[in-house]
C-alpha cells in the first residue's frame, strides 16, 4: 500500500501545479483545464496500477537466513526483472492462514519449509504453482511440490560446543543420546519436526526404515521414550533458529539439534561450535504464494527468476544451505571448498536421511501432541 499512496501523493502535487499554471492563464482556459485534469487523472490511475504490478512483497524468517536471501536472491532477482521487492518477516504458515482467511493483503509470497507449505496447500490457503513458468528441470528431484518451489536444502544436525568436547563431539545421533560418553546439557526443538528421527537413528535404525517404524504407534512411542531417557539432560527446548544459534554462542548448552546454516554463521561470528553431517536430516525450504495474492502472476515470474543458479550460488556465500538447482554447482559458481560444506553436496548428502514430507502430512498432529505431552511430563 505504501508505494501506491506515495505515488498518489506525488500525483496530486503535480496535478495542483498544473492547475496553478492553468489558473494564471485565465478563466477561458477553464474547459481546457478540466479536460487536462481528467486526462492527467487517467494517466495517474494507469501509472499507479502499473506501479503496483511492478512491486512484490515477500516475507521470510529474518535473521542470518533472510539476510542471505535478501542479498543473494530477493534483491538481485527483482533488479534483474526491473521490479521492486519489499521484505518483511513473519511467524510461519499460521500467519498465511490468518491473512487468507481474514481477507487481508499483506504479502504476495513467503519463504517456508516444505512441510508447512504442504499442510497449507492441503488446507487450501495456497495458490498452486505454475511449473510451466517456473523451470525446475535441473532441480534435485523431490525438492518442489504443488505449493512450494524449493530454493535451498538445509540439514538438521547435532551441533556441539568445541570448548566442551573439542573435535570429539557427538558425530552420530547415538553419541548425542549417550549421556555417559558425552556428559553435558542438551537442547532439542520444542516442535516435533525432525526430532523423532534422531531418536530412532540413535537406536541404530537404518535410514530406510525410520519412517516405516515411525508410522506405527509403537515406533512413535519408541522414539519418544528414547528422548524421555535423556530428558533430564535437555536443558532447553528451542523455538527458533536464532535461539539455538544463540544457545551455542552463549555456551548455554553443550550440544543441540538445529539447522546447519545457523551454526556456520554463529561459528563465523566466533561461536565455539561444530557439527558433523553424519547426523544430518535433510529438508528443504522454498517459496509459496497465498491464495488470492494480489500479485500472483508477477509472483510466479519472480519465483521463476529466483530459481536461477546464480542467485542460489550467491546465497550460499552467506549461509550454508545448499542450492536445489544442480546448475549452481557448475561453472565454478560455487567454490569447491564452499560446495563441500553444503548439506546437499553429494559427499554430505550420502550420509543423511531425507525428511519425509509424506510422513509429516499424515502424522504431524498426532506426533506433535505426543511430543508436547512428553515435554510437559
Amino acid at each position, binding site marked *: 500500500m505504501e508505494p501506491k499512496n506515495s505515488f498518489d501523493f506525488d500525483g496530486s502535487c503535480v496535478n495542483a501545479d498544473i492547475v496553478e499554471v492553468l489558473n494564471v492563464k485565465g478563466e477561458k482556459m477553464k474547459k481546457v483545464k478540466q479536460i487536462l485534469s481528467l486526462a492527467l487523472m487517467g494517466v495517474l490511475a494507469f501509472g499507479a496500477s502499473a506501479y503496483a504490478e511492478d512491486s512484490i512483497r515477500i516475507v521470510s524468517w529474518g535473521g542470518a537466513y533472510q539476510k542471505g536471501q535478501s542479498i543473494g536472491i530477493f534483491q538481485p532477482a527483482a533488479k534483474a526483472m526491473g521490479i521492486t521487492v519489499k521484505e518483511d518477516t513473519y511467524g510461519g504458515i499460521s500467519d498465511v492462514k490468518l491473512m487468507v482467511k481474514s481477507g487481508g493483503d499483506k504479502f504476495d509470497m513467503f519463504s517456508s519449509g516444505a512441510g508447512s507449505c504442504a*499442510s497449507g496447500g492441503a488446507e487450501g490457503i495456497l495458490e498452486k504453482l505454475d511449473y510451466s513458468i517456473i523451470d525446475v528441470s535441473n532441480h534435485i528431484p523431490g525438492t518442489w511440490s504443488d505449493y512450494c518451489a524449493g530454493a535451498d536444502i538445509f540439514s538438521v544436525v547435532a551441533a556441539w560446543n568445541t570448548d566442551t568436547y573439542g573435535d570429539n563431539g557427538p558425530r552420530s545421533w547415538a553419541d548425542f543420546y549417550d549421556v555417559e560418553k558425552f556428559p553435558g546439557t542438551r537442547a532439542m526443538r520444542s516442535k516435533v519436526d525432525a526430532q523423532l528421527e534422531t531418536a530412532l537413528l540413535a537406536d541404530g535404525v537404518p535410514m530406510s526404515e525410520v519412517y516405516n517404524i515411525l508410522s506405527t504407534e509403537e515406533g512413535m512411542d519408541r522414539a519418544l521414550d528414547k528422548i524421555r531417557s535423556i530428558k533430564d539432560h535437555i536443558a532447553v*527446548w528451542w523455538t527458533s533458529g536464532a535461539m539455538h544459534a544463540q544457545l551455542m554462542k552463549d555456551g548455554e548448552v553443550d550440544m543441540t539439534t538445529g539447522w546447519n546454516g545457523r551454526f556456520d554463521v554463529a561459528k563465523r561470528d566466533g561461536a565455539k561450535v561444530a557439527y558433523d553431517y553424519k547426523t544430518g536430516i535433510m529438508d528443504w525450504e522454498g517459496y509459496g504464494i497465498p491464495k488470492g495474492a494480489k500479485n500472483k502472476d508477477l509472483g510466479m515470474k519472480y519465483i521463476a527468476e529466483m530459481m536461477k543458479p546464480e542467485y542460489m550460488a550467491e546465497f550460499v556465500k552467506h549461509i550454508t544451505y545448499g542450492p536445489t538447482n544442480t546448475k549452481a554447482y557448475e561453472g565454478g559458481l560455487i567454490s569447491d571448498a564452499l560446495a563441500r560444506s553444503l548439506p546437499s553436496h553429494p559427499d554430505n548428502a550420502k550420509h543423511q536421511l531425507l525428511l519425509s514430507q509424506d510422513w509429516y502430512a499424515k502424522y504431524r498432529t498426532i506426533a506433535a501432541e505426543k511430543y508436547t505431552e512428553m515435554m*510437559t511430563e
Partner: protein
Amino acid sequence: MATVGAHLNEEALKRLDRQERFNLFGLTLPYLGLVSILIIIPIGWLFYMSFIGRDGTLSFENYTRMLDSKAYIRIFITTFKISFLTTLICALIGYPLTYFMSQLPKKWAGICMIGVLIPFWTSLLVRTYAWLVLLQKKGLLNNLLLDFQIIAEPIKFVHNTSGTLIGMAHIMLPFLILPLYANMRSIDKDCVRAAASLGATPSRAFWTVFFPLSIPGLLAGLLIVFVLCLGFYVTPAVLGGGRVIMAAMKISSNIELYFSWGAASALGVVLLVVTMAILFIASRLVSIDQISTRG
C-alpha cells in the same frame, strides 16, 4: 391556581427529568454498543469457534482432544501454578515496597513511582531478553558469582520455572503496586496513630489496622496480576526454555498444528471458564461488599 391533580409546572418538570434520563441513556448507548462489540461478540464467537471441527462442522473434537492428551491438563496446571506463584512473588515484593513508598513524603514517593513505572516504557520483549542476558549460564550474574568464588558451578537461573517467575514477576510488579499504592495512600494515617495511642506496638498497629485496610488494594492488584499472568506468552517462551508451557503458547502452536481456530478457541474457552470459576470462588471466600465498605 394549578389545575386539579397537578401542581405548578409538575408535568413539565417530570418531562424534563425523563428527558434528562433519556439523554443520559443516549450518551451511554455508543459505549454500551462498543462494549458489546468489543467484548460480548468476540467471546461468543470464541465459544462458537471452539465447537467447529477441522472439517467445518459442529463437533466436540476440540474438547475431547484435551482429554486424550495429558499435555493439556498439565499445561493448564502449569499456567495456573505459574500465575499463582508470580502473583505471590509480586505480593511478597510489592507489598513491602508499596508500604515503604506510601510512608514517604509525596515528593519522594513520586520519584520512587517513576522508578516503578520506567520499566513500563520498555518493551516486554526487551525486558525479557535482558533477564536472559543477566541470568543465563554465562550471564552477568553467574560470571559475577563465579568470579567472587561464591559458587563453583553456574546456577541455572533461566530456561526453567524460576527464570519464568523472575521475568514475569518483574513485568507484573507495577500492576500490583499501582492499585495498592492508591489504596495505601488513602488510608487515614490517624488510624494507625490512633492504634498506637491506644497502646498498639508498631507491628500490632500494622497488622490490626493498616494491613486490613490495605486489603482492598492488595486484592485488586493480585487479581489484575493473576489474570494478566494467565495469558502470558513471550516471557515464559523465552525464559522458560520450553520447560514452562503455558496455555497461550499452546493456543498459538495449535493454530499452526491444526490450521483451525477451533483447536485454539477451545483452549481459550477452558482458560476463560476456569479463570471465571476461580474468581467466583475467590469472591465467595473474600466478601466483595466487605471490601468496598472498607474504602
